[in-house]
């Protein structure tokens, strides 16, 4: 790995200023679980790395009861989310999904913020965040701003971060009480080849809202409106898993890569959506 200078700012403003001044020559990092690997492989080079781990105020994990939103600071580790009694209480599906991210060493070290900012297409939890709704909060030389996750993730390894900007936290939800989640993934390497999430909000016997998200197979995770239309306004009794499967398979355009062929992922996406729907309907609760 090429030599670089390491900087450990004590305050967020200092970090932002440094990053703004150095531009492309500098990169912020926290756990470095993905960044260090690509730097070792010579795929990325920076003269300056800015360690964000000592910055205060970026590690909170809190639930807003009124808004029913879950706030995760950028420095929250995957392992913390996995083991958090709070997360297990308010959104157990997230804790369960985190348990399967990479391996325990990566989860001990890697952070939520780092995961989103690296924007690996075969990333795990972005799909689930999108399923619940996710607002990304940034701080830069121009001040603070927030984006929807769909606006933040712009492509493979690409985000909407402006020069000098740092992701400070994300807000997930609202996690509506009547919403049930299903989440399925297919993986044979360390990273998933395909992740599918289905969220169904019901009132009595009707589906009042539905979200279907597919990730890890296209450059960014995204909602599938055609699939959501199949579920919306449906009678629970009449919800057709096969219709969902067909809609998802028709809509996704997976990448052909080492994680699997496009046709295979296309077929699998529909199947996993059907299973995720079944999980949601049979699982119960915001789980």
């Amino acid at each position, binding site marked *: 790995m090429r*030599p*670089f*200078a*390491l900087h450990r700012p004590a305050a967020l403003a200092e970090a932002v200023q440094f990053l703004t001044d150095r531009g492309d020559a500098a990169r912020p990092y926290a756990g*470095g679980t993905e960044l260090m690997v690509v730097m070792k492989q010579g795929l990325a080079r920076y003269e300056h*790395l800015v360690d964000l781990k000592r910055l205060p105020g970026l590690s909170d994990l809190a639930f807003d009861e009124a808004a029913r939103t879950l706030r995760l600071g950028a420095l929250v580790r995957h392992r913390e989310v996995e083991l958090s009694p709070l997360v297990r209480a308010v959104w157990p599906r997230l804790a369960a999904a985190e348990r399967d991210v990479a*391996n*325990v060493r990566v989860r001990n*070290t890697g952070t939520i913020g780092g995961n989103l900012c690296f924007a690996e297409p075969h990333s795990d939890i972005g799909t689930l965040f999108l399923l619940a709704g996710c607002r990304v909060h940034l701080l830069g030389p121009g001040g603070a701003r927030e984006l929807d996750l769909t606006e933040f993730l712009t492509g493979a390894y690409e985000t909407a971060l402006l020069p000098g900007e740092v992701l400070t936290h994300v807000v997930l939800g609202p996690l509506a009480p009547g919403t049930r989640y299903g989440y399925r993934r297919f993986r044979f390497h360390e990273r998933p080849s395909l992740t599918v999430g289905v969220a169904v909000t019901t009132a009595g016997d009707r589906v009042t809202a539905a979200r279907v998200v597919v990730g890890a197979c296209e450059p960014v995770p995204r909602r599938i409106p055609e699939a959501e239309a199949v579920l919306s306004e449906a009678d629970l009794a009449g919800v057709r898993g096969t219709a969902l499967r067909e809609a998802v398979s028709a809509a996704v355009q997976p990448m052909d890569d080492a994680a699997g062929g496009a046709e295979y992922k296309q077929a699998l996406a529909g199947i996993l959506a059907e299973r995720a729907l079944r999980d949601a309907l049979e699982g119960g609760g915001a789980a």
Partner: protein
Amino acid sequence: MSQSERPRTPIEITVNGRRHRLSIEPREFLLDVLRNRLHLTGAKRGCEMQICGACTVLLGGQAVSACSLLAADADGGEVVTIEGLEQGGALHPVQQAFVDCTALQCGYCTPGMIMASVALLGENPDPSEDEIRAGLRGNICRCTGYKPIIAAVRRAAGHAEEGGDGHD
């Protein structure tokens, strides 16, 4: 950039109970420091990308990949390697269990596998077989087929009566 011009950073790390003050290049990984500077060659270089687990050490009691953790990120921390497990000249119970169950063949994955097992038992003192499989999922072994490793962890957790050496 010549050697003398390269940026250096001072770190202080406690390794197996001993404090070390080192002046390192920021680009040095914990594995480089352990193997090359401290001559603790138990942790192995494997995939270099956090997949195989051969470099597993404990930092603050948690399993980490030394190959991909900057030594600077262990500054102020407590590291335990395979060399630090023995207790008063005797093998650590997990080490002994690995011996008793013949849970190694070439031995290359073994230091990492043992450290991962120690971390697992530290968080879950009596794991089921499924929990062991899940907990050690990030450590790859090409030789044993994993059965004796799982038996060793069960044995270390106090279930010596199970399965003998794990080879049926």
